[in-house]
């Protein structure tokens, strides 16, 4: 039987952030990763916002294999046959330090794993944790591939389903209402073509969100990010809505339809799809977070539910990196105190509450309910695009006056409903 200071289950962003931080303080850390390498099981949309985590890992970012910094933001409201797009470009998006980057996880996580190993963490790939070992109510280690491995503390960073936290009694299997599923294609394109099509200079990148008809009015949306030599094009959609919602649609169809939309088809023309991936995303907000600690165990990253959709931004990776970092800090404090009880480890929650992580979750605790409004995905895209179509229309005969055209759509009744919708959004 081998004994370590800390066992980290899952070599993704949370796990590697914890391992990196702990190894830096000379603790003996074992990271168990079930994939062939870190990142082999991980998927992002995706973009990483650096500002909140820059200072937690000051030495990391200079050489990090990030794709493009996002300099152009777009959101499109999609109706069945038309769309209205808002494009935002701001000087600050083009100034260093850049706010966010597109990223590919197989590449990024593999690199981060190397950095953690350089600090002294031990990484074992191709190793699935089968069981949590609990003695007298205290987590003391894990069983993986027939080996029994012990540690003072286990950090569960095993992703959105976290079977480890479930076994340790810190969470239930999860309610479909609190999760979305994301799936995407990586479409390879020549960098010069990408830069031309998206109007990018050098390493600039673009982010595009599509809402409305792309999910058939279900909670979610489409996304497109430019990488160095490829595009990430995908769909995120609420699992509950997919299960129950009318109209009935099979998930993969949504992405095929998105690819055929004229707004998207011209951007991906001639590209070569090289990978198709999918991942579950926790989107239940504060109330859906799991218990964050127990005797001898901490939970970080997606495993704890640290991912958040507030409409224009969907974020998870910064929370993973930061929660991994704070889990490591909690372990260091526990080590000083010489005990690893739930009571001692609860300092993890305090550290998170003091950080942007829990502050964000507290501030946006109403986001899941405010945004879970089918009108945002059906009525509004339809109304806005129809209005635009009529404003731009020049038919034979005289053109309708503009004000009556608008008024036709914005009836008192409609405005009353809108007021109701936006009262909820005020809580964001």
């Amino acid at each position: 039987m081998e004994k370590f200071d800390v066992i980290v289950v899952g070599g993704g962003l949370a796990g590697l952030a914890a391992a990196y931080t702990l190894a830096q303080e000379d603790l003996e850390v074992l990271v168990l990763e079930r994939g062939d390498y870190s990142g082999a099981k991980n998927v992002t949309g995706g973009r990483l916002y650096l500002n909140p985590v820059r200072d937690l890992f000051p030495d990391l970012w200079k050489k990090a294999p990030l794709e493009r910094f996002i300099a152009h933001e777009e959101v499109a409201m999609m109706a069945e046959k038309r769309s209205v797009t808002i494009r935002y470009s701001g000087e600050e998006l083009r100034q260093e330090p850049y706010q966010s980057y597109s990223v590919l996880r197989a590449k990024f996580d593999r690199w981060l794993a190397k950095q953690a190993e350089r600090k002294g963490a031990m990484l074992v790939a191709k190793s699935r944790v089968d069981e949590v070992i609990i003695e007298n109510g205290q987590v003391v280690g894990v069983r993986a591939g027939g080996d029994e491995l012990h540690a003072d503390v286990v950090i569960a960073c095993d992703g959105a389903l976290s079977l480890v936290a479930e076994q340790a009694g810190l969470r239930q299997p999860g309610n479909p209402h609190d999760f979305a599923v994301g799936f995407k294609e990586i479409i390879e394109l020549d960098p010069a073509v990408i830069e031309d099509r998206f109007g990018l200079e050098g390493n600039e990148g673009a982010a595009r969100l599509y809402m409305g008809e792309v999910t058939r009015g279900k909670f979610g949306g489409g996304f497109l990010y430019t990488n160095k030599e490829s595009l990430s094009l995908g769909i995120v959609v609420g699992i509950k809505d997919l299960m129950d919602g009318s109209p009935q649609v099979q998930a993969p169809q949504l992405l095929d339809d998105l690819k055929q939309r004229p707004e998207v088809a011209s951007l991906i023309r001639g590209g070569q799809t090289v990978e198709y991936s999918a991942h579950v995303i926790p989107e239940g907000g504060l109330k859906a977070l799991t218990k964050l600690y127990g005797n001898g165990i901490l939970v970080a990253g997606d495993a704890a539910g640290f991912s958040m959709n507030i409409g224009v931004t969907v974020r998870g990776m910064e929370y993973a990196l930061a929660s991994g970092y704070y889990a490591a800090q909690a372990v260091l404090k526990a080590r000083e105190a010489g005990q690893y009880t739930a009571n001692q480890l609860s300092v993890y929650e305090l550290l998170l509450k003091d950080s942007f992580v829990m502050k964000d979750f507290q501030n946006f605790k109403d986001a899941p309910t405010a945004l879970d409004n089918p009108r945002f995905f059906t009525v509004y895209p339809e109304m806005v695009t129809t209005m635009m179509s009529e404003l731009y229309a020049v038919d034979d005969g005289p053109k309708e006056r503009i004000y009556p055209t608008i008024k036709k759509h914005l009836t008192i009744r409609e405005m009353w409903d809108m007021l109701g919708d936006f009262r909820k959004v005020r809580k964001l």
Partner: protein
Amino acid sequence: MSEILGLKAKLGLDVFKHDSEPHIRIKAGMEKDPRLKKAVLVCPAGLYSLNDAGEVEFTIDGCLECGTCRLACGTEVLDWNYPTGGAGVQFRFG
């Protein structure tokens, strides 16, 4: 436009490593459970389908290990685990 590939062709682009046994199983006696039908809608790899008899059929080949079926159908219906270490999908981009 990048072509519409069809799911089989799309999944054929991914790297999969063989596992000794399937990591997801429909529990015995649950083949006709209504909860199982949800998997047909939610699975991004389209691994669940309805046959002519109205039963849900399932194949593990092409599983992306996202866990959506576990959330949608529940653990009473599905015996759900990740593949053994080093098996299953290995994303090259992610």
